[in-house]
């Protein structure tokens, strides 16, 4: 795939992050803590999957116009290897317990909200339209996940401990969201302090705090992933890899 045009990489980065966290959340389907929350997390999964489809379709269109290729949303999602995926490391991390699942969503959704607000003002009308449509969904994801962070953080002794563990585990993967890649079109440094304020306010209400001076992992945005992504892709891509173009 010819990715000389950095804008194509940026679109794939957006698509990949939404797809990979959707795939992770999708693992909760029929395994949620209770029926009602099982439906809530899978609704969010479908929102994220919808976002990724919009980005993949648009990326495929732009790629084909530029290179005369014949990519589709499916080839981009199912026929690219681990090193081609540009999602945040945060998105591919395992679900762990419910605390870890909702904290990952919280950290990601808060970032997505800020990023998509910027994208919705983009000169690229198509990108702006996708961002605008997604923002309403993301607003709910932020509300839902914030409430869970507060509920568990300020809950029982055990739920508080689990939240602390989740934040300690996930926090070192948040720095990557603000490290610019060659293809980024938004000034991420601007978003960082707003994101941190927002996240800190919720954590404070949840009687939790941000870990101090943590080493930050990076690499996802340029295709260097944790050991977890390969397994995720193996499961997600198996059918299309084994029977390319299969439909049902």
């Amino acid at each position: 795939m010819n990715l000389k045009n950095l804008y194509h990489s940026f679109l794939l980065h957006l698509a990949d992050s939404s797809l990979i966290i959707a795939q992770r959340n999708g693992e909760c389907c029929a395994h949620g803590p209770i029926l009602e929350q099982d439906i809530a997390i899978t609704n969010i999964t479908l929102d994220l999957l919808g976002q990724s489809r919009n980005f993949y379709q648009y990326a495929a269109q732009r790629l084909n116009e530029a290179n005369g290729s014949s990519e589709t949303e499916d080839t981009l999602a199912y026929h690219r290897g681990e090193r081609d995926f540009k999602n945040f490391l945060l998105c591919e991390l395992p679900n762990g317990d419910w605390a870890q699942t909702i904290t990952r969503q919280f950290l990601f959704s808060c970032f997505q909200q800020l990023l998509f607000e910027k994208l919705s003002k983009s000169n690229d009308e198509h990108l702006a339209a996708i961002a605008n449509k997604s923002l309403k969904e993301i607003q709910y994801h932020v509300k839902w996940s914030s409430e869970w962070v507060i509920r568990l953080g300020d809950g029982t002794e055990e739920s508080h401990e689990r939240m602390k563990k989740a934040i300690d585990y996930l926090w070192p993967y948040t720095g990557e969201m603000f490290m610019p890649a060659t293809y980024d079109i938004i000034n991420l440094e601007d978003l960082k302090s707003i994101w941190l304020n927002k996240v800190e306010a919720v954590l404070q209400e949840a009687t939790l705090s941000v870990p101090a001076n943590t080493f930050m992992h990076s690499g996802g945005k340029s295709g260097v992933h944790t050991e977890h992504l390969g397994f995720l892709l193996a499961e997600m891509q198996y059918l299309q890899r084994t029977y390319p173009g299969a439909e049902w």
Partner: protein
Amino acid sequence: MHINITKYYYGDIPDAGNNNTHESTGHSTTSSWPLWEVFIRSKQGLDHKHAGSLHAADAAMAIENARDVYTRRQEGISIWVVESQYIHASNPDDAEMFYEPASDKVYRHPTFYDLPDEVKHM
């Protein structure tokens, strides 16, 4: 015979070999969350109609759960929830004295006079 069933929740399933009779107390169980009745208004101007019930820890969560469970196919534009324990219901044993006396009182139906054409929606 007494069967001891241990319920495990998502993310809490122990490693193989460690599957002893560990009591998974301390985890919130479905039964510890109260039941809520959900009423949905399908569009402006219509009444809220009973849609079903669900479990939630508090009212805010009940409304969000109702949004996720009962409005995901555009069924509604407004949600009411009320904890089921606050609904007082008539006793089925009272059915005879409550409802049967009305069955032979046709004069209570507004069918004994002609409505002017101008009156609509009756």
